[in-house]
């Protein structure tokens, strides 16, 4: 009991000092950032660029909600509205969610968690950031030139035959951004296999690394299939090859198979790294080893594996055979099992833990609740009969926003707040950040819970007008989106503020056990002065208590 109480009392940060030399001040000048091979600097570059795209995508969400405030199409015309939701989808999925946690937090932390000096291929890491930027620029080009209105799914033959918008620009943007994601995944897998420090066995790795490993497998195996599907769409538009064109004997459904073969695993690319964040945060703020470490680790891999065999549930109403629909429905239900394993294990980690409610923990609680709702409504949609009623309605919109925004974005913010002291060496104002976490949670529920009801009542997605009886719920949703917007603006402001004025964090402000917390914050460019040797498993709070006790006597 005595050891537990010493752990819960967080260290006195008033004596903490900023280290003289760290990765941020190691070199100066813009070029030292743009040509860097340092995984931590690349992570910061990514963090800035994905934040930029997040707020552009968010602006489109705001415009969509504004149009839906009234039943009449009064803000924009139908085709402009189509361009809005397409841009919102493309930016949020390919330029924010897919790289969000892996490319920022993963990039920053995986080498440190493994006790390595850098990722295996620093130049490829930098290349992947530049590819991301090219993809982002092309997306913005498509936007500025007049937009694209295929929806983020590029469904054929709509995208190949019936539209005169900038499909080619947008599809090339995603093609290029896809390679950025492939290279990130490849780098992670090689690093995790080959760069672990002495004593860092597979089952001593933090769960954050495990979930990134699973997500990287999906990136490496899934993204090339999206690439070829987009190449075929581009060839069809440019020179009229007819692989997806029914008038020439092609099959538009083939495109959907190829597209969803990537894009369903892609939702696990988005959520798995977030689950890794939650494992770290829950363990740290309950001061307990993650319950069922092995089960949580393997459930990540299981999600990655099952994730490849469920893509057809996006196509149940598109004329696929009944028998295959039955099989895919069953497989879809199976994915719920490893996800539930994670949720239950986190709950058991909390059980009898010494829980404190710091900001990252609040976001993590938000994740657990919202992801569970999102996951369970996914089971509704996976069952064949329900799916026919609910698909292409706001129910599905609410479902994937619960998983992606309620789940992943909460996890991203949990992670950013959790590791912010490590990345910048400074603390943010705790009361303000707690306010932001609560605001986000309230705003999110207000935005998306009404959409479940709207969808169940039959309001179809992707229309800019709707019957007047749906207005009350839509007004609620728009009001919620406003609150949500405030919730997302707050971190931008106070995190920016903390860069200069925040209290100095010290090495281990949360008293966490991870290897990254045992080095200075912000870390040195080479991470470790000497290669560490790991002799304890992840989340060993007894080890940390011993270490801290010794430190008190020696530092004095």
């Amino acid at each position: 009991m005595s050891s537990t109480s010493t752990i819960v009392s967080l260290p006195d940060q008033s004596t903490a000092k900023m280290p003289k030399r760290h990765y941020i001040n190691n070199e100066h000048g813009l070029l030292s950032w743009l040509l860097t091979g340092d995984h931590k600097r690349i992570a910061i570059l990514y963090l800035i660029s994905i934040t930029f795209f997040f707020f552009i995508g968010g602006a489109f969400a705001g415009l969509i909600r504004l149009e839906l405030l009234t039943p009449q199409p009064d803000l924009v015309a139908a085709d402009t509205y189509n361009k809005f939701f397409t841009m919102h989808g493309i930016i949020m999925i390919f330029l924010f969610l897919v790289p969000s946690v892996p490319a920022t937090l993963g990039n920053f932390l995986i080498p440190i968690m493994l006790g390595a000096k850098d990722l295996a291929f620093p130049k490829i890491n930098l290349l992947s950031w530049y590819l991301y930027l090219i993809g982002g620029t092309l997306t913005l080009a498509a936007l500025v030139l007049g937009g694209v209105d295929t929806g983020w799914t590029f469904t054929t033959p709509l995208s190949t035959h019936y539209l005169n918008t900038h499909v080619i620009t947008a599809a090339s943007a995603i093609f290029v951004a896809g390679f950025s994601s492939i290279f990130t995944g490849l780098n992670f897998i090689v690093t995790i296999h080959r760069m672990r420090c002495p004593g860092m066995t597979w089952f001593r790795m933090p769960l954050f690394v495990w979930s990134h490993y699973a997500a990287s497998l999906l990136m490496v195996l899934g993204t090339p299939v999206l690439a070829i599907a987009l190449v075929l769409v581009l060839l069809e538009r440019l020179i009229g090859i007819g692989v997806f064109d029914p008038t020439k004997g092609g099959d538009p459904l083939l495109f959907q198979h190829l597209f969803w073969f990537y894009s369903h695993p892609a939702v696990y690319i988005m959520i798995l790294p977030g689950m890794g964040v939650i494992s770290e945060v829950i363990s740290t703020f309950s001061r307990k080893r993650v319950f069922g470490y092995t089960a949580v680790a393997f459930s990540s891999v299981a999600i990655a594996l099952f994730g490849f065999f469920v893509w057809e549930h996006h196509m149940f109403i598109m004329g696929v055979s009944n028998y295959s629909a039955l099989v895919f429905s069953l497989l879809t239900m199976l994915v719920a099992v490893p996800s539930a394993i994670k949720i239950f294990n986190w709950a058991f980690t909390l059980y009898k833990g010494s829980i404190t409610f710091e900001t990252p923990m609040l976001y993590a609680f938000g994740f657990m609740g919202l992801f569970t709702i999102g996951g369970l409504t996914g089971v509704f949609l996976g069952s064949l009969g329900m799916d026919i009623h609910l698909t292409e309605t706001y129910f599905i919109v609410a479902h994937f926003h619960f998983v992606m925004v309620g789940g992943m974005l909460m996890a991203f913010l949990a992670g950013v707040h959790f590791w912010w002291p490590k990345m910048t060496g400074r603390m943010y104002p705790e009361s303000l950040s707690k306010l932001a976490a609560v605001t986000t949670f309230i705003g999110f529920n207000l935005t998306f819970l009404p959409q479940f009801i709207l969808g169940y009542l039959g309001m179809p997605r992707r229309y800019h007008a709707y019957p007047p009886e749906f207005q009350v719920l839509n007004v609620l949703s728009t009001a919620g989106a406003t609150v949500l917007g405030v919730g997302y603006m707050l971190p931008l402001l106070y995190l920016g503020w903390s860069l200069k004025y925040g209290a100095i964090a010290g090495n281990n402000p949360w008293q966490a056990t991870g290897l990254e917390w045992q080095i200075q914050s912000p870390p040195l460019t080479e991470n470790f002065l000497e290669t560490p040797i790991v002799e304890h498993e992840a989340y060993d709070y007894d080890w940390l208590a011993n270490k801290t006790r010794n430190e008190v006597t020696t530092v004095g």
Partner: protein
Amino acid sequence: MDNAIATVQEHGADLHAAHEHVALPQHRHHFETEEQQREAGSFGMWLFLLTEIMFFGGMFFAYLLYRNWYYPAFAVASNQLSVPLGAANTAILITSGFCMALGVWASEVQKKGFLVLMLVLTTLFGLAFLGVKTVEYHEKWEKHHIPGASFNISEFTNPAGFGLKEEPLAPDMAQKTQVFFFLYFAMTGMHALHMIIGIGLLFWLTHRAHRGDFTAGYVAPIENFGLYWHFVDIVWLFLFPLLYLINRHPLH
């Protein structure tokens, strides 16, 4: 120092003493040892090739689907391809791969002249392959077998008129030969693109090999490029039977 994060300084010293090799200038600071660097590099290359398999896999899947749907069209369209040219290209590509394998060996045993010779031969055979491919593409152009507005189905609806011993196809099925040619051009074109990128890399590697970069113990780029080049060979080894051979004797 605390109890868990100890140092491996002594460890590292032992390791180096045991192997007694000179540190390579290409050794990167973030790898503990050169073995680790080399292993990471080739592991990364294998993973990249895995993504390439998935990339080509999309097209192989489309081929499988349409071949089942439009079997008669695929049979006659496939007979349009020249087996001697395809076989010659297969031989050329295998020879090129053989030279590349010898090049990797030359780099390992540090024979600079032989390495450069092998890289040049690999390049030449690669170019020869592309040359033959151009001849084949040109023939399709002349016969109006390039999919698009000028695609001509008369050879498939009236084979006797062209001196072919094929069953004539109904016009709608004959149109489906276009699907075969889409896939033919998409798959061989994507393969050729990989060859062109490979040949570009070969020029650069030959230049560096000539400078002596790869014959002083640093073989990773040659080894990894070799993996890539063999992968491109293997893709062709699947394309050749699927596109040229599999329908030579259609079932009746």
